[in-house]
């Protein structure tokens, strides 16, 4: 192994399953949610509150994360997912009660800003666009909704309901490229195209783009043989990693129009996504989450086989050789039950959070050894 996955700290967060963990953009707070209908925010314990002996013990092991606050009044059923806005001042939660709640920072606390209703039943995921102008939600009713923020009303309005998926939609991910708030000048020139990726029980990933004043499906990524549980873009947004019930991880590459390789886009306008690498043989159960670290380029997976695995891209000998990834670290007993979600800290390279059906949240550090 070329790296080590070191467990830093474990929280017994709930009696019930923990569905999701998500770091805020500055990496100072970790939000979690689960079947207990509670959102918890975890942060480093203030040094002022500690005695010296404790400080020294903490610093040796970095075990100084504690639950800072708890939000209990948002949902009447399981909370499947939480997401931060890129400004860090908003938090959104997706509930099996068909509701999406948006929370706004008020000092140290988060207060309910608005509840978005419209999904017919269980909402599975929620995600803010880079600028915070859009919020995307998806769920069991097979639809993806895009909500647009209106500053005047300080509320979100429905901008699109996309029903391209033929089954339950599991996960959403906005392209990392920064979107621009609409102004009169940009309204028609639209300098940056918004792209949203969605993963579904219909075994596909779809890319949605804003087109005039509506949204359309620009491409469908078809290669997985079963439910696609999650996906993530790399830091450039030119590649995507996805994971599936078929126990594989796939790497996709976007070929822009007029690409060197001469790959034609069926639409002629939107880039075409091709699967360029399949990682198989490592996972023995469904893979529920995959993340592509923007700081280290490492890929982490969370699986139904209770394991967390870390993959690193191998250096290519030739420029146009297909990419390949090798397993550099793993813990096959990371949790006692399914690992549902993982999250790379966006500021501290190598810091990883995971959560599980066993009701615990764990913090990990990935230590890479020079190869």
């Amino acid at each position, binding site marked *: 192994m070329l790296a080590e996955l070191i467990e830093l700290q474990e929280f017994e967060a709930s009696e019930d399953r923990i569905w999701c963990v998500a770091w805020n953009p500055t990496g100072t707070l970790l939000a979690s949610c689960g079947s207990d209908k509670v959102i918890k925010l975890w942060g480093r314990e203030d040094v002022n509150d500690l005695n010296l002996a404790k400080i020294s013990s903490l610093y040796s092991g970095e075990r100084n994360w504690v639950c800072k606050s708890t939000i209990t009044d948002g949902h009447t059923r399981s909370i499947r997912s939480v997401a931060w806005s890129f400004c860090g001042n908003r938090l959104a939660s997706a509930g099996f009660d068909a509701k999406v709640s948006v929370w706004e920072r008020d000092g140290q606390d988060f207060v309910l800003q608005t509840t*978005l*209703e*419209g999904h*017919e*039943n*269980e909402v599975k995921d929620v995600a803010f666009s880079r600028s915070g102008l859009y919020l995307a939600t998806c769920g*069991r*009713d*097979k*639809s993806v909704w895009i909500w*647009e923020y209106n500053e005047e*009303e300080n509320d979100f*309005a*429905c*901008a*699109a*309901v*996309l*029903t*391209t998926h*033929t089954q*339950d939609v599991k996960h959403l991910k906005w392209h990392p490229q920064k979107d621009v708030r609409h102004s009169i000048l940009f309204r028609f020139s639209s300098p940056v195209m918004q792209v949203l990726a969605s993963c579904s*029980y219909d075994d596909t990933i779809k890319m949605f783009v804003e087109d005039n*004043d*509506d*949204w*359309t*499906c620009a491409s469908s990524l078809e290669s997985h043989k*079963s*439910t696609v549980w999650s996906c993530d873009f790399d830091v450039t947004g030119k590649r995507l990693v996805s994971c599936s*019930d078929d126990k594989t991880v796939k790497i996709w590459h976007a070929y822009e129009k007029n690409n060197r390789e001469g790959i034609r886009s069926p639409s002629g306008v939107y880039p075409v996504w091709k699967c360029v690498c399949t990682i198989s043989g490592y996972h023995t159960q*469904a893979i*529920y989450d995959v993340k592509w670290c923007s700081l280290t380029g490492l890929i982490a997976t969370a699986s*139904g086989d209770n394991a967390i695995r870390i993959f690193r891209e191998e250096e290519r000998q030739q420029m146009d050789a297909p990419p390949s990834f090798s397993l550099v670290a793993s813990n096959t007993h990371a949790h006692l039950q*399914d690992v549902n979600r993982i999250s790379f800290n966006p500021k501290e390279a190598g810091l990883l959070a995971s959560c599980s*059906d066993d009701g615990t949240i764990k913090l990990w550090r990935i230590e890479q050894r020079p190869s």
Partner: protein
Amino acid sequence: MITKNFSGALQLTDLDDFIGPSQQCIIPMQTNIADNSDDGLIKLRTKKSDKTEAESTPKVAKITLNDCLACSGCITSAESILIDQQDYREAQRTIKLDPNKKQIVLSISPQSLSSLAVRYKLDGLTCARRVTSFLKTKLGIDHVYDVAYARNSALIEIKNEFLQRFQNNRQNLPLLTSECPGWICYAEKTQGEYIIPYISRVKSPQQILGSLVKNNPNENIYHISVQPCYDKKLEASRQDFYNEQRQQYDIDCVISTGEFEKWLVEEQFDPECSSELDYDKPYTMKDENDQMILTHRGSGSGGYLDYVFRSAAKDLFHIDMDDKSLEFKVTRNQDFRETVLTVDGQVQLRFAYAYGFRNIQNIVQKLKRNKCEYDFVEIMACPSGCVNGGGQIRSTDVTLDDVRRTYESLPHLDHPLDLRIDEENSIPLYTNYRAIEKSSSNGFSLKW
């Protein structure tokens, strides 16, 4: 992309603004539970295994459109089950098997006419006359009527309804139009009690015409309605429009413009054939030169907003808007536009078009939060409204722009005719809506 037929809150093959059947139809499952002397155990599956393990296949149950209307399982239903109940072949069979016993009536909506006219490269009037002639001389249809005739009553009633609510302390405003059955279905199934008081109780032109045509109890009539919309099939199947005395629905069969066109092709309709006939009296509109008039002023969805706005300006604020065109402000998108009446710097009336499912959502949410500033909303489930209905002809040579232009160039009335349906022959012009409770059986088919 899979072509879904019902609009539900609509779908077009090239647009995404649509709610499709949202989950598997649960009616057969319920039947299964009732019929089966099962042990009553709920079969468990592992939490995330999407594939259900060896569940016994439920017995196939016959589902009627009525079952669908009463079920909260999905918003619109498995169209394959539904379409065969109201299919043009069904109409064909009825005409062929029963040539003498029944009077066959076919009525055409102006939006369907516009789609056909574009298909046949004819103007609306010529198209209406050629199709009418063909239907009557070649297909043995006894009467061909204009759905827009019944719209006169719908427009006047909805205006009355609006004025009444406005003058009654603006009670239950905004008034939401009820012409669109996709929207009504959505409202009843998912929005529950709070939304219903806002919905106009005036029957749609299709159903008003249905009542008018079958008003004479001595005639045995089979009524086919040609509509731009599959959801009109659901509307015609509402229990409210079942005539107990006749043991019949007011409208027997609704066929979409696309189905109608297929039928015409099968029967070898020739659009070049110059044999022409007007729609039949009495359910047609004529000008002083006996020339047919085919629609009303305003939107391609019936002109409800246009007429009610002008009437309200006149009756409530003594402002005559007759010669002016209404000015609209695009709010969120082209399908959400509003117009206001300002008197002495004060906004007195605020009306809006809200077309397409996303805009329905925004209206519904505004209402839920008591933040709806509108007095009247013309709501349609399809983006661009009924000219773009889910049942219109889908073909590269029939574009929405052409259909809209053709609709706009149909000879139209600025004011609806006051039909003064006499007391003796009065027909009900109003109907009711009811919230459909969420079925508890939904809970059993959860998939994470």
